[in-house]
């Protein structure tokens, strides 16, 4: 699905990612954990194509395509989805028109016909149920006036609508209470299939009780320094990151 090799990225001349390697195969769920400033959100931003970041070295292969060579929207159209840590508000633009524009552009890219209004509405109804999103929110402006939890659920709703190959959830759990967390996680689980994959970036092990990862990676100082299974997450929760730092310095 995605193969990241020796990825180096910097912003304003400061190197954040320092040779990151990661391979994700279809059907897998990978969790990336790490202390603040390790480069977790940078990784998400770089993969989605934020222009502020400069890629100084490395390659990213996404289903046979050179991801770094694609424009942001083409990455999305190829099936890469980022659930934003801080979803932005777009005043005056209704959620539903926004999604229809997105869906049809993606379909057009794939050489498919635009979706009919009727099918689109059916899809909206079906997918909003997955994250228990109030259908009323669909007609409101994108993220405007949404609570923190609603914004995050809206991200997963969009993910359901766009049906990506690879979803990257950037701290989707932060700020959520346990009910909202459960809803979001259930949503993600329902969308899981043998053909798609998920990268969960998180601070807290808690989320991984709901979204069971196949692999847990520790990102530290711009590199993945340790890889394990879900037990590693529990270890980290209990012992913090210091022991990793120590292990590294040995």
């Amino acid at each position, binding site marked *: 699905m995605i193969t990241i090799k020796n990825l180096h990225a910097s912003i304003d001349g400061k190197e954040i990612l320092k040779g990151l390697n990661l391979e994700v195969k279809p059907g897998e769920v990978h969790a990336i954990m790490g202390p603040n400033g390790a480069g977790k959100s940078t990784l998400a931003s770089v993969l989605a194509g934020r222009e502020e970041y400069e890629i100084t070295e490395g390659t990213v292969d996404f289903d046979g395509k050179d991801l770094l060579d694609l424009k942001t929207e083409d990455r999305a159209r190829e099936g890469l989805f980022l659930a934003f840590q801080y979803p932005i508000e777009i005043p*005056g*633009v209704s959620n539903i028109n926004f999604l229809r524009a997105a869906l049809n552009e993606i379909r057009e890219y794939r050489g498919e016909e635009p979706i009919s209004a009727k099918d689109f509405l059916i899809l909206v109804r079906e997918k909003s149920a997955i994250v228990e999103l109030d259908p009323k929110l669909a007609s409101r402006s994108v993220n405007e006036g949404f609570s923190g939890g609603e914004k995050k659920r809206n991200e997963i709703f969009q993910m359901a609508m766009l049906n990506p190959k690879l979803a990257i959830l950037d701290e989707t759990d932060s700020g959520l209470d346990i009910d909202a967390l459960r809803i979001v996680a259930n949503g993600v689980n329902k969308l899981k299939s043998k053909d798609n994959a998920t990268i969960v970036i998180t601070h807290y092990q808690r989320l991984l009780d709901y979204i069971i990862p196949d692999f847990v990676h520790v990102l530290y100082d711009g590199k993945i320094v340790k890889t394990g299974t879900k037990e590693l997450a529990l270890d980290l929760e209990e012992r913090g990151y210091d022991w990793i730092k120590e292990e590294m310095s040995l």
Partner: protein
Amino acid sequence: MSYTENDLAEDLQNQEYKYGFVTNLDSETVPKGLSEDTIRLISAKKEEPEWLLDYRLKAYEIWLQMTEPTWAHVHYEKPDFQDIIYYSAVKQKKYESWDDVEPEMKETMKKLGISMDEQKVLTGTNVAVDFVMDSVSVATSFKEKLSELGIIFCSFSEAVKTHPELIKKYMGTVVPTSDNFYAALNSAVFTDGSFCYIPKGVRCPMELSTYFRINEKGTGQFERTLVVADKGSYVSYLEGCTAPMRDENQLHAAVVELIALDDAEIKYSTVQNWYPGDKNGLGGIFNFVTKRGVCEKNAKISWTQVETGSAVTWKYPSCILKGDNSVGEFYSVAVTNHFQQADTGTKMIHLGKNTKSTIISKGVSGGKSNNSYRGLVQIHKNATNARNFSQCDSLLMSDECGAHTFPYIECKNSSSKIEHEATTSKIGEDQIFYCQQRGISSEKAISLIVNGYCKEVLNQLPMEFAVEAQKLLAISLEGSVG
């Protein structure tokens, strides 16, 4: 589900100014240039009564004394008033019925999306239209149906003949001849326009609309619109404008007067899409328009405008809130791109007690354009408890454009309250990125965001116009980001 931004975007694939065609019709024009003789000739061609000719000649005299205004934040080469054709009319037999209209003309209307076919009312378009091409009104639909309610809706020239008492009573009462240079010019040479009268207590059941079109080369368009809403009546009036693509600058200098008597309400919406010139700034319409309304007791006038066209725009639809408790509103979206220049805004003159005004202005500037908001809120001494709220936002799309705000606030009453807010900012890069991450191209993302930004104003437009306006915004913004 209604027309979405997405449908819109599809409609727009690389579309440019689509109204830039020319209709080949024989037309009758008077020779270029302006003199007393030209005015006499226009008046004679229109078979006008003596009093109207006198009105014109007096206006011409006043105009000769005046100089072109220079205070607006626009730069253009002053039109050569002797190089303009002041009268151009499609050679016509009188159109007695819709069937008399030439096929070319019908084709033109079709291209412009104007429906004159009264049958169409059944399929949903419920708009009565007056179509003005170059100097004269070509056709007006639904006349009979309206006249059953006592509503008069016809071309200005026709009204001069059929309802001279109303024209005499109201023409020039809101915009006096001497008001400004272009109003004086218009008063001297105006050729046609629309007239509308809504009788006491009548709620006009359909939107009334005038569609203005400049076709002939070298002509100026000088139309006059007069809307009178008698006591307790209501009307919603729409105005659309287009012109062919030509590399010359053509002048459009209109006068619009609205009169809302006690308890009446007039909603006046404009989608202005005169040819803006090409992307190098060549050609386009000079749009110098005076629009003003007067509100008597408890009356309300609401101006809504979406302005995407014209090379140079200079226009301030205003409300004189004369009667107690009267209300004035101004909702505006002005988009400029390439080398366009716009200096637009409103004047709210509070004379009566408890008068209220609201100003919402959204400017979007791209390319190398300049977009200015200029507004006046004036509270007179006796306007006890007057209220004004103004919000003027500017969105910047390129680093070579300019966005300016020039509000004038004058207050002479201590019980009144005026609030003015303005912001200027760049289009949000994070918003564009968010859209792109969902697979939407940056051009389309901008169109979405700008439409959202203007929603407060677009929502004020009647449905058919709102769709039109959305399309226009997207077309106008192509290539605006620098």
